């Protein structure tokens, strides 16, 4: 009793607005500086798109949020908790965050259903029956229930990526990170994946996504963040970002992208 009352004020002090707060994130690979002091706030139910050229640090930033990558400096606050503290159990933090990769990274030796339920069963200690019922419901909602018993190599790229998204959200994470989830797909398969992301956004999922799909970012994202050489150049509401970019480098980037 007394313990909880002692910790509660401290929590409240740090967990003001913002589900995710990054302050001064710095990361270098040897000589190369990949993230050069990144500050970013993401509120609950917000959809933030990270845009920028290849090598601008988008993917690295996503991986640092999920603690798949160590940082050289800075603070990562998830719901007010400093998860960049080395004393924090990283596995527990990762379990609260869903990630979808460019190349799906489904487990080829497990069926679609086992892929989706693995974390629920092993990490969240959910009974198999409960986990499977929930997974089937989710798979059904994205039209993939018929593939529950199939193995990933029987599925098209778009179907695999949708399974990967279902796998990431199956345990109800507080935050969903999408790392260029359509970049490895054939053009005709991009739509089905984006449609799923759109419906997640509409249901209020908090999403941070690195993307090259500018039209999609404009449509779905609340905010667009433009990264260049490891720094945030511009951070603006999506409409504003595309209609009236403030920075010269943003305009340059958008011009190149819209021409291509």
């Amino acid at each position, binding site marked *: 009793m007394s313990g909880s009352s002692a910790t509660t004020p401290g929590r409240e002090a740090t967990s003001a607005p913002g589900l995710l707060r990054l302050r001064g994130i710095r990361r270098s690979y040897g000589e190369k500086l990949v993230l050069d002091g990144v500050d970013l706030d993401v509120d609950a139910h917000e959809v933030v798109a990270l845009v920028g050229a290849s090598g601008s640090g988008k993917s690295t930033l996503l991986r640092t949020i999920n603690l798949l990558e160590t940082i050289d400096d800075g603070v990562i606050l998830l719901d007010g908790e400093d998860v960049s503290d080395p004393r924090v159990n990283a596995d*527990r933090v990762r379990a609260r965050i869903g990630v979808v990769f460019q190349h799906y990274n*489904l487990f080829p*030796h497990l069926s679609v259903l086992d892929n989706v339920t693995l*974390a629920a069963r*092993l990490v969240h200690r959910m009974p198999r029956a409960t986990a499977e019922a929930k997974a089937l419901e989710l798979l059904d909602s994205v039209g993939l229930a018929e593939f529950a018993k199939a193995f990933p190599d029987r599925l098209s790229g778009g179907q695999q990526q949708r399974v990967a998204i279902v796998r990431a959200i199956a345990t109800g994470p507080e935050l969903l990170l999408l790392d260029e989830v359509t970049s490895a797909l054939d053009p005709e398969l991009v739509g089905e994946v984006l449609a799923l992301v759109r419906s997640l956004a509409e249901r209020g999922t908090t999403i941070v996504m690195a993307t090259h799909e500018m039209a999609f970012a404009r449509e779905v994202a609340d905010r667009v963040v433009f990264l260049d050489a490891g720094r945030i150049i511009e951070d603006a509401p999506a409409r504003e970002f595309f209609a009236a970019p403030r920075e010269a480098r943003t305009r340059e980037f958008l011009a190149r992208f819209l021409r291509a």
Partner: protein
Amino acid sequence: MVAESTKAGASRGPTDLGASGASNEPAWRPSDLELSRRTFRRKQTRRSVLISAVSTIVFAALLLWAVAGSPGWAKVRESFFDPEVALASLPRILEGLWLNIQVLMVAAIGVVIVALLLASMRTLRGPVYFPLRALAAGYTDLFRGMPLIIVLYLVGYGIPGLDFFPRVPVAVWGTIALILTYSAYVSEVFRAGIEAVHPSQRLAARSLGLGHGQTMRRVVLPQALRKVTPALMNDFVAMQKDVGLISVLGAMDAVRAAQIETAHYFNFTPYVVAGLLFVLLAWPMIRLTDWLSARMRVREQGGSIV
């Protein structure tokens, strides 16, 4: 042997083509061009089969003629291929072989467990685990370098000499020596398999919140094992014949039995019998290994014939 492989290779193309065409579209009839190609291929296959059959027969006949025509053949046949001695020594040797099979089974299980532990130790990252990594590396270096027969002598005569464990049968020490040596080899096979699993698989598992151990057990190892199954089975076949070496410790196995029978009859036939029994024992596994690796190769080349 030559004939067999040529035949299998040549017959795959045309028959497969015909089968898949027929099942997909019953209305389809092969064009005249295709029919002429098939006739040509059939003719070629017949020719290769004939050539290899003839060459095999000629070679076998020459070999037989050379051996049987050698000046010492009569003596060799008498002391190595005496059917009466073979029959008389068979029960004892079979009894010994049963010990070999028991040792083999226990050793195989032991090898898998120890090798998995060693391989997992060697893949640990971080400075904290340096002692474990170094221990595993030292172990594999030592036992891959040391001849099995010396390990057998050291374990079989050295450890009982400590008098900690009196009355342990020698076969047990032989089994331990086999486990020590073979787990060093097999751990390297496992390690190769673990490293062949793409790092993105580990990344995906860890990002779901799975710990290092869970990731290893549920994601990495199942995929690694699949990749190295043929190599593992090959090591099993190698171990299958090396169990015969426990006879140097005096264990009453097939080789030791053959040795005693040989001394009894003043005839080497029991060794030939024991050798053939070992081949028979290993043969199903050898075929299975070959079949499995062939199947994996076919899958990976995905329909291409080169």
